[in-house]
């Protein structure tokens, strides 16, 4: 009896050493290591401030320019025009101006500092699972597998879901990968350098309120500056009055900002994103039956939904702590995926799931024991291969980029011409989608049906035991 018990105890211990679940349960034997917050190992190209509370894009130069322009313009207005207008017209003018100014700043900061709706990257388990399903669907692994797409029917319209090679997920509808921030963003509108952030699901309403209130503010300032000049020129010289006024800045801003507000009002009322509008995804030019499946039907509902709908919380837990039990792959190399290139890559992905039989010589990703937690991820990430940029996989489709350029010219939104080239009004990095899609599109969005035929638990048990033993051997080294 005693022997039986000790044997089973040994068994328990054995399984405790060999594998670890990736749930954040801490072992009692873990050493005290200073806790890191998740934003410190965030894989995207974002900047964080205030211990993860503030999140911005990498390039923030233009944002500071925006701030300076607003502050200088309003500063000049309040200093030179307001005293005169308050005295000769009404003191309500500076008050209204002040309220508008505070509102503009508030919405700008809210847009710039908040998470636009970034989708966290897939965990290694998920990525491996998807890989397996795609491989099964594909059949043989060619040198360069076709781009992965899934078709889903949403409210009668067929929508293609693209696979993101960087984030290793099938992007939800309306999500897009921003090449500047290197993140997939939900309901991606565009990347705005003026606010120094992407505009997506979580900050679109703040962005809209920013440009709307800025339009009112610029019109307000412009109107009252003109009034001031007219009133002054009755008394003294016209040129004298002009030199103290922020007219020039206002003049250009008014047209561009008002134009942009008008454009976004149209987008909101038809429930489209800038991305979709530029590509003409729901335009009737594409086909008679082409319509927007996300629209609620009428303008009022669309507006209410966009501006007053529920605000989803951030999906990337920035200020959460990293649990060292959960293997975190090193940030820069995490996004690198090499498909169909080498056999070793296949074995890495296969080894990540204990289901498959391949015994890799390198330790697996998910089941790292705490002691080796540091060593394993770095080795596998090296194995995943070289610079992502050299791969010809993720190329933006030429058609969309030219379309977006022509759109820029026609709308002429930005006043400064040298900024046009850099302005990411362009569609983000898009995977090429030639006619050759996955043959398994008939099971549509139900990737599970593919999985069903593949995994057979009964036959895997004994083989799994062997692979587990193999892991134990390696982890004890």
């Amino acid at each position, binding site marked *: 009896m005693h022997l039986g018990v000790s044997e089973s105890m040994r*068994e*328990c211990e054995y*399984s405790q050493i060999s594998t670890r*679940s990736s749930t954040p349960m801490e072992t009692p034997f873990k050493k005290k290591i200073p806790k890191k917050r998740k934003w410190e190992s965030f894989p995207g190209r974002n900047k964080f401030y205030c211990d993860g509370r503030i999140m911005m894009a990498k390039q923030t130069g233009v944002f500071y320019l925006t701030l300076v322009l607003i502050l200088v313009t309003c500063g000049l207005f309040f200093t030179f025009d307001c005293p005169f207008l308050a005295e000769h017209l009404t003191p309500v003018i500076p008050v209204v101006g002040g309220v508008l100014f505070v509102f503009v700043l508030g919405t700008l900061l809210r847009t710039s500092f908040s998470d636009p709706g970034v989708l966290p990257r897939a965990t290694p388990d998920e990525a491996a699972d998807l890989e397996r399903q795609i491989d099964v669907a594909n059949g043989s692994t060619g040198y360069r597998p076709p781009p992965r797409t899934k078709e889903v029917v*949403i409210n009668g319209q067929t929508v293609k879901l693209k696979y993101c090679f960087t984030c290793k997920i099938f992007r939800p509808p309306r999500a897009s990968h921003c090449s500047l921030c290197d993140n997939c963003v939900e309901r991606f509108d565009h990347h705005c350098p003026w606010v120094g952030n992407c505009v997506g699901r979580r900050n679109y309403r703040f962005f809209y309120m920013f440009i709307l209130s800025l339009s009112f503010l610029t019109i307000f300032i412009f109107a009252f500056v003109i009034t001031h000049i007219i009133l002054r020129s009755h008394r003294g010289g016209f040129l004298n009055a002009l030199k103290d006024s922020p007219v020039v800045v206002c003049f250009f801003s008014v047209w561009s900002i008002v134009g942009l507000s008008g454009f976004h009002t149209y987008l909101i009322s038809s429930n489209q994103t800038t991305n979709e509008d530029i590509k003409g995804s729901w335009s009737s030019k594409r086909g008679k039956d082409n319509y927007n499946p996300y629209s609620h039907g009428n303008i009022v*509902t669309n507006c209410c939904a966009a501006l007053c709908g*529920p605000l989803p919380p951030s999906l990337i837990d920035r200020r959460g702590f990293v649990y060292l039990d959960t293997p975190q792959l090193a940030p820069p190399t995490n996004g690198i995926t090499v498909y169909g290139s080498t056999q070793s890559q296949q074995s890495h992905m296969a080894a990540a799931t204990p289901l498959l039989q391949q015994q890799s010589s390198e330790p697996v990703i998910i089941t790292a024991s705490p002691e080796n937690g540091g060593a394993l991820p770095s080795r596998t990430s090296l194995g995943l291969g070289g610079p992502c940029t050299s791969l010809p996989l993720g190329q933006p489709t030429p058609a969309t980029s030219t379309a977006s350029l022509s759109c820029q010219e026609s709308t002429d939104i930005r006043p400064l011409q040298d900024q046009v080239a850099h302005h990411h009004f362009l569609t983000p990095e898009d995977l090429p989608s030639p006619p050759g899609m996955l043959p398994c599109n008939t099971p549509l969005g139900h990737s599970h049906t593919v999985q069903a035929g593949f995994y057979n638990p009964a036959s895997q048990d004994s083989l799994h035991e062997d692979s587990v033993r193999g892991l134990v051997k390696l982890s004890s080294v």
Partner: protein
Amino acid sequence: MRPFKLWQQAAIAAKVFIQRDYTNGTVCQFQTKFPSELETRIDKQQFEETVRMLNNLYAEAEKLGSHSYIEGCLACLTAYTVFLCMETHYEKVLKKIAKYVQEQNDKVYAPRGLLLTDPIERGLRVIEVTIFEERSLTR
């Protein structure tokens, strides 16, 4: 609680991922199709009931109605400072979901050697079901 603690030390046999169902648009819904890996572990009805309940809860979080509009307008008028003292409706429902997942794990899934991961921990992409090996049931 005892059976659950044992599973912590158990080996992971497999992980099953329930993907999102986008047929109704971008609202958060998960596929209710029963994965074949769980056939030996849990009742199909039970599992589908769990997923359906989760779907209902997420639909409640994202529902457009007078309640959400009032909250939105109030937030706008107070320049969103109201959320410094109050939780958004969505966050309240997420807490409900976390409680539901915990409860389901304790009552239904842990005794069967399974573990549901709250979808929010996976960025609302998947419901991750961890299948543990049978061996560590001995005490």
